[in-house]
């Protein structure tokens, strides 16, 4: 069984040097590339979020459309319009409570 020192000595330490200009050119290209990829990814995330939000909002919008339609039917049944309805409510001192 190898001792601690023997194990450490198995490590072969290299002493190479690299071409700094070529390395820096590649590195800077990689950084710029990763920046533009990040921008593209953020764009993709935002569009995906917008689509999800739209899909989520659609049923709410439909509910709202239904309510507006019922309100319109109510006004036409009573032969009145929105302004008259407001006037009627204020004349009778009626307010909406939250």
């Amino acid at each position, binding site marked *: 069984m190898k001792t601690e020192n023997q194990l450490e000595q198995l*490590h072969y330490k290299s002493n190479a040097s690299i071409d700094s200009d070529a390395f820096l050119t590649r*590195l800077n290209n990689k950084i710029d590339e990763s920046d533009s990829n990040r921008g593209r990814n953020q764009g993709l995330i935002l569009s995906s979020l917008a689509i999800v939000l739209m899909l989520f909002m659609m049923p709410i919008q439909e509910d709202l459309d239904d309510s507006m339609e019922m309100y319109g039917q109510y006004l036409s049944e009573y032969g009145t319009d929105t302004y008259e309805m407001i006037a009627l409510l204020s004349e009778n001192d009626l307010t909406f409570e939250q």
Partner: protein
Amino acid sequence: MPAKDHDLIKQFNRGNREAFNRLVKRYMNDTYNYYYSITQDPLDADELTQQVFVQVFKSLKKFRYEAAFSTYLYRIKVNTLNSYFSNNRWRSFLGLDQMPELETTDEDFDKKTLSVELWKAIEQLPKKQRSVISLRITDNLKFKEVGEILKISEDAAKNNYSHGIKSLQKIMGKKR
């Protein structure tokens, strides 16, 4: 007199990209040799060195000037090495792993082969033990420095090292 690391980082954070290049030039050979010694593969060593400095570029804005840049760089180097080992495990699982192609004419061929075997064994250790051993073996750092880099106590660094060496002795013993 060359600018201090912290000054270069400040200049870079003010938008001076050349300051970043100077910082890279200062540490790229050490970083490259750290990985080359471990992988014995120039392409892997180059790729890992690039990954380290891309990470440095992205994270320097958060640098807090409390520790030396070299400590900060070591942290990134060890994390990158751990990711490399994790990828290797996947490569090995998928049967895509390869031994680096060493030149048989190389007079240090035997030493390099043994070194590759050592690192294949270190790769199998738990992450903390592996990180401590890699810092001790590659750069002969003191346990105090290892602890500072890995954000653990000096004693924890010693314990992890001792457990790691025992495991290595078992792993390497089985192969012999």
